[in-house]
């Protein structure tokens, strides 16, 4: 049970980090002149 929860938690965390970083990169690309 613990391994399954860790697996899902880490996967969702990876996605969260990636999407947040992608949002920042996108904003930076729009703001820079």
């Amino acid at each position, binding site marked *: *049970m613990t*391994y*399954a929860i*860790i*697996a*899902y938690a*880490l*996967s969702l965390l*990876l*996605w969260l980090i*990636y*999407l947040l970083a*992608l*949002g920042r*990169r*996108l904003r930076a*690309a*729009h703001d*820079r002149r």
Partner: protein
Amino acid sequence: MTRDVPLWWRNGARWVWILAAALVVASLWMVARAPIERIMGPVQKIVYIHVPSAIVTLLAFGVTFAAGIAYLSTKQWIWDAIGAASCEVGLVFASVVMITGPLWARSAWNTWWTWEPRLTTFLILWILYAGYQIIRSSLKSASKRTISAIMGIVFFANLPIVWKSVEWWRGALHPKNVTMAPDMRQVLLFGMLAWFVVYVAAFERRLRLEWAREARAREAHATADSALLEARVR
């Protein structure tokens, strides 16, 4: 070319994101409620994220392969953007596979890692496409797009090997085919749909980044051109 994509695109993307979030929540709910496997217990539920992520990884790198061919034959920037966007999102999926795999292996095979055919070939796949990202981001020259396209095409050769590895080599721990109970298969198929929509949503977002960068590069080019023209007039 504006820095942001057209309005219809932005509006459509919002709906894709809502759909993706809803499907992932529904998928997690289904996973929580899925029947518990008799021998492995709850750990078997890792399969509902591991397998869909692996399938979407192959799909994403397949898109990079096709976009690579399209870029080399047309030389249009959008194909390069599509290839790069799909490759990066595919690498996130591949990383999910690499995270969930050892956790499954620890329970099922009593080891975190073993040099089993599919594990080995998938690790090679991950390294190749991580290399793609590093090489692409380090290139500044005009050949960046061509080199990326070639990498996308050449590295794709490993995909059929990953797929067929369990048949070609002995000692495979991954099953060649699995017969699942219908209520478990349903959860797996729904997971595939949910993560596929996540792929589409993330791909769209990543493609928008390429779009903004292309627009910026063109702006800079136009500014440089007009400055040159002004200097000549003087």
